């Protein structure tokens, strides 16, 4: 790329994590372009230009890219790893190039160690110093933790707030301020401040609410638009929603696996006797988590995945058996670009009714 042109970088949305990765993107480019929030139009665009059998995240990402390119971005970033995800980059690049866009494509597939990441950045912008990269990495990580912590609290309590909409308002303010905060200390202070604010919001929580765990595939778990705000829907019904997969938890697991390689073994041990081997990507974790939640006394589990997701389909055969053996309610959702929202709402409602009845029935005995 010539030096005269302005570098504008962009990357696809996933939940609220745009805020967290923004400092890293700012390192290599003069301007960071936020793709417009995911909407029906985004999906339409992505869907039209994707191969038909590919899983949904591909379509969403492609839609994000097209919209970002329309806004003038000329560097795109794609991460990768696990199952099909690691191969997204190359295919998406080919599709977009064929559509006539001009851009540079940065693929970070399978290079998650900080050193490899730093090398990738320096390849794009050679004058970058390692100190700067380190600073941005830490800042990103802090912001990540910040988001995950507050979202976890919001998720568990949003169903019980006394005045509707307070949590959402506070959370939006928080994200806006976070985007402006650039120092490590600032992020730390912000986190404290907002956790206090969130905790101060009055809630009206019954002693033993229904507790539901959400497990499944990463992208649809973390991108609320792709799962039709399933978590919000649940919370509205007064259910405490627990989700364990966040970007920081994934990073933690990856690091653990890289340094000590004990994570996988632990997961497989937990999911014995249903699994003997690793299922690929996040499948094993779904099974292990399900078993753990059953033992913890949860009321139900929701398993979500994009249509045709290979590792999660593998996990499903084990989950079916677990559900049968423990007589435990598990509901499966699979999302495609065209699944209808009402159908999902109806099924959720039925699931909720069933859980309530089961709980009442158990209490009588």
């Amino acid at each position, binding site marked *: 790329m010539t030096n005269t042109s302005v570098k504008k970088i962009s990357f696809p949305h996933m939940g609220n994590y745009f805020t967290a990765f923004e400092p890293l993107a700012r390192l290599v480019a003069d301007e960071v372009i936020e793709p417009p929030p995911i909407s029906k139009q985004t999906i339409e665009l992505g869907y039209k230009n*994707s*191969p*038909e*059998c*590919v*899983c949904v995240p*591909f379509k969403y990402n492609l839609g994000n890219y097209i919209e970002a390119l329309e806004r003038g971005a000329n560097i795109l970033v794609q991460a990768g790893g696990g*199952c*099909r995800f*690691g*191969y*997204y*980059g*190359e*295919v998406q690049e*080919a*599709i977009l*190039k*064929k559509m006539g866009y001009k851009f540079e494509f940065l*693929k970070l*597939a*399978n290079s998650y160690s900080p050193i490899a990441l730093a090398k990738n950045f320096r390849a794009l912008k050679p004058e970058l110093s390692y100190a700067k990269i380190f600073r941005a990495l830490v800042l990103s990580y802090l912001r990540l933790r910040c988001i995950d912590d507050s979202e976890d609290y919001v998720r568990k309590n949003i169903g019980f707030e006394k005045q509707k909409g307070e949590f959402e308002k506070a959370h939006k303010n928080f994200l806006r301020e976070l985007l402006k905060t650039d120092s490590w200390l600032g992020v730390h202070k912000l986190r404290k401040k907002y956790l206090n604010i969130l905790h101060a919001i009055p809630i009206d929580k019954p002693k033993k609410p229904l507790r539901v765990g959400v497990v499944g595939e990463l992208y649809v778990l973390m991108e609320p638009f792709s799962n039709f705000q399933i978590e919000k829907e649940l919370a509205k019904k007064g259910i405490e929603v627990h989700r364990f997969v966040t970007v920081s938890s994934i990073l933690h697991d990856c690091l653990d696996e890289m340094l000590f390689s004990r994570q996988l073994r632990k997961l497989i041990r937990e999911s014995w006797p*249903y*699994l*003997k*081997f*690793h*299922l*690929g*990507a996040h*499948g094993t974790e779904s099974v292990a988590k399900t078993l753990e939640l059953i033992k913890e006394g949860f009321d139900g589990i929701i398993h979500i995945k994009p*249509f*045709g*997701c*290979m*590792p999660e*389909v*593998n996990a*499903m*055969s*084990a989950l*079916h*058996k677990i559900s049968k053996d423990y007589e435990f309610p598990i509901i499966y959702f*699979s999302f495609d670009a065209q699944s209808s929202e009402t159908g999902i709402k109806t099924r959720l409602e039925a699931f909720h009714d069933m859980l309530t009845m089961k709980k009442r029935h158990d209490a009588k005995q």
Partner: protein
Amino acid sequence: MLYHKYHFFWEEFLRSLGQEVVVSPETNREIIGKGVNLAVDESCLSLKIYLGHVDYLKDKVDFIFIPRIVSLYKKENLCVKFMALNDIVRNTFDGLKTLEYTTHVPTFRYDYFGLFSVGWQLTHNPFLIIRAIERARKAQQNQQDKLLIEQENKLKDKKDDLRILIVAHPYTTYDAFLGAPIINFLKKQGVELVFADIVNEKEARKLSKNISTDLYWTYNKELVGALEKYRKEVDGIIFIMTFPCGPDSLVINLCQNKINDLPIVVITLDELQGEAGLKTRLESFVDILKIRKGKAIK
């Protein structure tokens, strides 16, 4: 699932150990029906067929031999379906006795050790096991060489016949229910077929870099390499994929985008396919190729 690629190897190996090998029959309606009922409804067709076969075998044998092949080269792996095959089977059928071994090269679990441990369960004579592995390897190698030479002769021979390259996994191409109808039909049309799965693996892996640099599914890599190798000598390409195959869905799209000089048709198979529609598509594809070739000669 990989039976069509390695069956000489595994059969010879088990037979050399003095075991009786029962092979399930070619796929038929009944097997597919059973498999569809047993499998999670979003699994790919190949997996459903596999479960159907296991179901057929489970009462007839003492052990079912299920190899688990995760990765054959560094930084590459197979479709995650192969990784989970054992666990899926174990969770679908209760109390099934299996013989299994794992091949995972990045962590130094080579197939030699795996096979040895399988052999150890059957006989405690290490020399017998080693002999069995060597014999099996030889049988497999012979078979591959034979196919390769056959294909190369085909390519050298007559030049003016219509040639079509079939790109699909061996478990699709040679399956009696999936690939065989297509192949028979094309042969009846007087088309010469070149199979992408018959290729020198090393060469193919090198050539695949021309089309795709990041590809990390070993079998797809070999197919793409073969595509690159044979594309100058054929008139058209047929991709066959089973619905909804994960790796293929991406790789085929990439190939469609990167290969612009040849007519391509993608055929997606599922358990409900109608034969008439398939035949019409193939016929029209062959006609297009014939017209194209006629023009080129003029």
